[in-house]
């Protein structure tokens, strides 16, 4: 099973954000990154989990060696005794995922619900997501059921980042206007 993020399906309900903080291992702390892209211009919203990079920048820049990647490819939250709360990882992550919790002087981020996936459950966010903008499924299921195409290769300038989590990309999308006025009859009169 793999994790697939598809912002085009997101309806901005924030169910993921609310459900994440209900997980037993970190109740009260949500690890979901959620954004209104530009509410004035658009209703578009996007919810993200950690992308779990193959070569995680957050770990590379950590001066305290507090961020570990497991054999399963999951990049863990900072180890509590090691993390010095310097926020290097927060600044360095190309996806803007890690968050520093000032009270605890600790970086915390999505670990893809290890407690749930290790017992055969889906991550909490991907379970509750009403629009399946966050989906945990086999690549075969995604290939069979979705029009969008998964990719896990991202280009940041000349830097290529490969990740464990997949992003769904649209196919055959033309230019889309998002201003209601552009659709109206009176607009042309």
């Amino acid at each position: 099973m793999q994790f697939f993020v598809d912002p085009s399906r997101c309806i901005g309900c924030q169910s993921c954000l609310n459900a994440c903080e209900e997980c037993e291992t970190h109740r009260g702390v949500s690890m979901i990154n959620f954004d209104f892209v530009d509410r004035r211009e658009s209703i578009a919203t996007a919810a993200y989990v950690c992308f779990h990079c193959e070569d995680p920048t957050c770990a590379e820049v950590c001066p305290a060696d507090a961020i570990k990647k497991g054999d399963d490819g999951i990049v863990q939250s900072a180890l509590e005794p090691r993390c010095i709360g310097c926020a290097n990882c927060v600044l360095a992550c190309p996806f803007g995922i890690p968050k520093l919790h000032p009270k605890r002087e600790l970086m915390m981020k999505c670990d893809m619900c290890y407690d749930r996936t290790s017992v055969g459950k889906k991550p909490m966010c991907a379970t509750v997501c009403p629009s399946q903008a966050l989906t945990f499924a086999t690549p075969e299921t995604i290939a069979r059921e979705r029009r969008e195409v998964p990719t896990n290769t991202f280009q940041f300038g000349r830097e290529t980042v490969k990740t464990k989590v997949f992003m769904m990309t649209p196919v055959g999308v033309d230019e889309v206007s998002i201003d209601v006025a552009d659709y109206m009859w009176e607009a042309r009169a």
Partner: protein
Amino acid sequence: MAKVPGSADAIRDQFGPHLNFEPAGGWQHESQHAPDKLVKTHCCFCGQQCGIQLKVRDNRVVGFEPWEEFPFNQGMLCPKGVKRYLQSGHPDRLLDPLMRTDAGFRPTTWDEALGTTVRRLRELQAKYGRDAVAVYGGASLTTEKAYLVGKFARVALGTRHIDYNGRLCMVSAGTAYKPAFGADRSPIPWSDIPKAQVLLVIGANVGECAPITTSYIWRCRDRGGQLIVVDPRFTPIARNADLYLPVRPGTDLQLLMGMLHIVLRDGLENRAFIEAHTTGFEAVAESVKPYDPRAVAERTGVPPEAIERAAHMFAKAERAILLHARGLEHHSKGVENCSAAINLCLATGHFGREGSGCAMITGQGNGQGGREHGQKCDQLPGQRSIDDPKAREHVARVWGISPEELPGAGYSAVEIMEAIHRGEIKGLLSICFNPLVSLPDATFTREALERLEFFGVIDFFLSETAQHADVVLAGSLQEEEEGVVCTAEGRVVHIRKAVDPPGNARGDASIFCDLAARLGKGQYFPYREPREIFEELREASRGGIADYYGITYERLDREMGVFWPCPSEDHPGTPRLFEGGVSMHADGKCRFQLTPWRESGDPVDADYPVYLTTGRVVSQYLSGTQTRRIGALVEQYPEPRVEIHPRLAATFDVDTGDLVTVTTRRTELTLPCAVVKTIRPDTVFIPYHWAGDKSANRLTHRTIDPRSKIPEFKVSACRLAKAGQAHAQLPTATGASRV
């Protein structure tokens, strides 16, 4: 008489709304203690009735776990479902019955509270007649409770005035579907939605008001289905629409008739279906002749070629589904709007087969079940008409009374409030209804409540309406009483009891039974538990339209719900109604209905040039009695904002965060605005979940549809003015502030 006692601050300090952010004992405590049990049940919010498992410890709901096996939502939940557990153990919860005093409310004994309620209701009925007392019910009650409320009003009190807050929900749809097909229910199960080739979603903000339905719509798109969205606002699902029609508020009827005009002009109707399965086509065909695309574009603001394209997409599809909700129904011509939607489906033959049809997306928790069994002013159990002598005879026999003792049809919800206002109705007993927030023209509603000679309320929190009560009977939350509900798709499901009511609060059903006993009618209300009510309800509904006779609690658990009608225990239930295009009318035909045009009851003019439309946000439920007390849900959308297009905003120089005064023919309201391009420039939107000086329903008007009696929430006329600056922001992620 019934003004809010004491100071508003004192009431707020004592009864809230306070915000509950964490489970009892705090997050840390909660992480360290396992629940005693997981209870498989359903969310208490909205007509989707998602399956959910409630974590229970020490007689408290302390969290949730997704219930992935339940077929409708497969573990999916919206934020309201995720956070619903925080109403359990809430500091605002009423733990005792209350009596009003000059200074506020004091806790009392059940004996005094029930005794006073019965004495006052009896006095009023003796002095002014039986119909001087009315009963309000609610569509978030279990079906057992809804049935009981209807029976209590008619048998224990003998009043004809019993109605419910579902009157503010989908009654226009029901009132249109019944004459067309003979039944008021979504004709399709939701599993049909992904099978359509074209989905026409009109007046339904699915992403925010029925979030789980989004998954069905996206699955349809995944299979190559096309999506048409009709709405004055660019709603979250509109972002993925193949065609978006920005209809002007109140002109949906023009649009639908215009689409039918194009279908018939271009010969795209399904003649075989029309001839085999329908009546009344010719008159409707004649009626749409004047609705040519150009004329319709002028009225609706939708370009003619977009209307043409929508009509062609819908008619040419082999399978197409039309979904509608309050945006189509909340109009003084709400029934005509829904009938026009049905006409379009019938004319194109999109009806009565897999992946084809029309459906109302019922909004309230038990919006479907709550209207089927007798708390509607004109219906008896089983969706029977109260005017039908055979129905009266059947129900009277089940209830052990004579048909003559059974009152006739009474006033609807808005009409009851108007009768209170003019002094015709003197006493009111209300459960599960917060009319001060949810009825239109809140100033009028407050005046009416202040004129009541006696007002009794059954509730678990002291809602804004309950603050006007003389007696408040501390009732139960959904998770505190067993029962059934019927979901938007017509599936009857089992609500399991997870916890007992806390303190001295009691199950709602037992409160009604005690009141009935004290009214000397105890022999008609002998129930010890909800199951006994359900057994009687099965009989009462037997042979009716909404026939529950074959449904048992055990079947609901085993089969994950049963779709009605289900006339016998070996009947599989009926996920798709009207299979093959055969209606429930005696002749089996579906009936086209004429849909004459009417102007709005609050027309836009030079003094009030802008349309005001109201609706919901994803993090709040109805009048907010529950959801305005849950911290995370309030943080997500803390207060109402006036959504306004940049072009309109520029005409009076406001930007996001500025305060705007919105004035209608009733009164004015000042709120921060959010400047967004996702709304028509001639329209503003305000969500209605709040009370007092944030109540959008102070602005709305009391015009109702003459048949469905639904208020016209979706069209008011207003003007706007800049009022100053606030500190409001455009919506941002709530996570940032919580982390």
